[in-house]
Structures are given as C-alpha cells and as structure tokens.
C-alpha cells in the first residue's frame, strides 16, 4: 500500500467504533482528565497513532506521516509573525503538534543519530492502555532524619528593589 493511502487510512480509521481502542483510551483519558485540553488531545492523538501502528499496519511511520501531512498542508508553521491567530480546537492542536514536529525534523533530516527518547509517549500510552503500568519505583514515605541546615546567607535584594 502506498504511504499516502496508509496515512489516509489512518486519518479515516473509525477509532470511535473500535471497542478495544476505546477501552484502552478510557484509561488514558481518565489518568489525564484534568490536564489542560491541549495535553489531553495530544495524548489521544498519539494513542490513536500507536494503536493503529500495532493493530492495522506496522508499516505506518510517525515521522513519515508528519512529513506527508506537512507537505499536504504546505504551511510553514514556524512563521514567527506575531499576528497569526487561530481558533483553538482539538484538530488544530493535533495539526500544530504534527507540523511543528515535522518542521523541526526537517531541519535536522541529516542527523540519523538523533538521540532517542528514553521512553516515547507512544510506549507510555500503550502500556497504560494495555492495563500495564509503566515501572513505578516505590519511594518510602519518610521524612529526613537529619536536622535541616540553618541558613548562612542573607536574602539578596530583588533586582526591582535595588532600582527603586
């Protein structure tokens, strides 16, 4: 399947009707439900991409998808003009994230040795959606037994106090 068809298939995939996806998604959404809307939407978009790549086609590549989407939109999203305003809808947020990601990727296309993320967002979302918690270390709920160190420095005047 041509890449663009795969990408279109992803964009048209009926996530709403996929019970397995919806079930996993509820866990993801519940754990982030009070995050600002942008963070929630980013979680959901990445969960969709990850799910699609695992269950429908392993061939879909996030970076390629982003590049394709950018090419199709033909926008320079790193326009520094301070006059640009847009309505803030979930779709816009997703597009923004994709285009911005890709703009930066394109700037560094030659660097195949780009340091990998220690744990990608997709991995995290996948683990949570599958009901597996990412490794969480148990930190003892204790107070320090040593006495706090008393201050030795005088508070410094703030820059705005020095002027006035």
């Amino acid at each position, binding site marked *: 399947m041509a890449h663009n068809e795969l990408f279109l298939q992803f964009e048209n995939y009926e996530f709403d009707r996929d019970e397995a996806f919806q079930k996993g998604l509820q866990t993801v959404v519940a754990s*982030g439900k009070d995050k600002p*809307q942008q*963070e929630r939407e980013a979680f959901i978009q990445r969960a969709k991409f990850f799910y699609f790549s695992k269950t429908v086609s392993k061939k879909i590549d996030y970076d390629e998808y982003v590049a394709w989407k950018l090419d199709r939109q033909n926008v320079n999203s790193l326009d*520094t003009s301070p006059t640009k305003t847009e309505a803030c809808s979930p779709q816009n947020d997703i597009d923004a994230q994709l285009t911005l990601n890709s703009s930066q990727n394109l700037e560094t296309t030659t660097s195949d040795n780009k340091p990998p993320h220690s*744990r990608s967002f997709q991995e995290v979302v996948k683990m949570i959606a599958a009901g597996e918690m990412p490794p969480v270390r148990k930190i003892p709920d204790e107070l*320090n037994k040593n006495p706090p*160190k008393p201050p030795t420095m005088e508070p410094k005047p*703030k820059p705005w106090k020095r002027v006035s």
Partner: protein
Amino acid sequence: MLTFKTEGYNGYSVQFSPFVEHKLACASSANFGLVGNGRLFILNLGTTPNGMSMERMFDTQDGLFDCSWSEINENQIVTASGDGSIKLWDITLAEFPIRNWKEHQREVFSVHWNYIKKDTFVSGSWDQTIKLWHPDQPQSLSTFTGHTACIYSTLWSPYNADLFGSVSGDRTFRLWDTKTPKPVIVIPAHRDEILSFDWNKYRDQTIVTGSVDTTLRIWDLRFPDREVKTLQGHQYAVRRVKYSPHSGDIIASASYDMTMRVWNVATMNPLLMLHNLHTEFVLGIDFNLYVEGQIATCAWDEMVHVIQLVS
C-alpha cells in the same frame, strides 16, 4: 545555550535560586505526568563546557508539577505533587524531604514562596482550593475557596506581603488578601482556561495572563473591565508566562507550540525572540534574578535549556 537532559523525566517547572545565581531547580514527572514518579533536579550552571551539572536529585512517589525556592533559607525548596502532597526539601540532605504536607485532595499544580514576608508560601490545586502555609506549621494556616475549576497558578505580589493572585480553568484571575476569605478582585480574563500569570515587577497593579486561547493579556488591576494589551503569536495554548525581574516591558512565554517567546511590549513589533529548539511542549520558564537576560526553560522533551537574551 547550556543544556541538561532530565533523563526519563519530563520537565514541568524551573526556578533559579534567589540566593545563588548559578543554581537552578527543575520539577519533573516520569511518563509525561500521566503515571509514575517525580524528580526534583538541583543543577549548577557553568560547571561543564556545555552547560550544567547535577548537584542533587530527589525522587518522589508521584509526579512533580512545580517548585519554589525558600526566600529565607538558601538550602530549602518546596515542591507540588500529583498526589496532592507538598514537600519541603533541604538540598544539603539526601533522599527524603524535611516536611511533607497532605491536605490537598487533588493534584497540586502550583507553589510559590512569599517574596516579602519570606516565611509563608501558597499552593494551588486541582481541588479548586488555595492554601497558605508556614514551613514550621504541621497544618495549613488557611484555605481560600471560590475558583470553580482546577487552579493552575498562584503567585505572591512583589509589592504587598499579603496579596497573591491565582488563575484557573474557570477562566478567571483572582486577587486575594490573606486577611480576608473572599477574593478582592475577580477578572474573567480570557475566553478559555488560564494556565499562567505573573506580576509586573516595575508597575504596581499590572499583571500578564496566558491562556489556552493562545494569547497573553496584560491587565491593570485598577481597570479590570478591559485588558491593556493582547499579545498574539503563539499557535497553541500558552502554558507559562513570566515578567522579567529587570524590566517592566519584557515578558517571556512558553507554549504547547513548543516555543518560548520573549516580548518587549514597549515596541511596535513586540516579539523580541523566538526559542524553538525544544521538540515537545515547553512548560517551564524562569529569568535569572542576578544575570540579566538569562532565561531557563524546561520541556516534555526531557531538556532544560538556559539561553542568554541579546540586548
């Protein structure tokens, strides 16, 4: 640019020490704050050729969303946690906090030490309450209610030891006096959630707010009916705004558009600088109090950047 990788942890907040000009703290969460541990990094600038070295780190059971250095003891810093706890740390003592308060019912998203009285701090939580604390008291001194959604930021006035402000998902800015339970002013400041605000350090009564509606707005609290100015440019939600400690005209803002922008509101074209080297949402910003033009940012890309603004 100086950089530091907060390996395995996504940055939520940075703050320069008010005592030591090369010291910086970063509050962070594993797994983007969805689940898992938190980590407080204490960093020193200029100790390695390309940047920063870690002096100490503290691990917590739940993610850390904010931090604020003590204004009275150079060794102490308070953190806000996803499990509702607030912890006070002594950076000379390894591993465990020296205090741990558990009153908030939900995630604590904001802590801030009083600039003037220096012996209290405030916290803002998703439980819609604000609490006032003294580091030596086992319980909070008082609780302020009124916001009708998650509270994202609470900050003391740089002018008046009893005044602090707060912003919330309920789209309002509220000004509070510690001596009265009700807000002094309520400003419906944006059309969408307000994630951040800051006080102008040189113009009494002036604040800036940053919102999911992508704009920054400047307000004169004496005339709350209308904003003084709107700054547009971010493509997505504004996550953090900060006034320069050195100028009443300079503001830095961080956004989900992965950029940090610096604005000079006194000029016709206010965008002074665009920092676009983060590859994920930028959540934290701070200005160095004692090195003019030095700005730190942290982001979900597990990086802390320190840049110098060219004047």
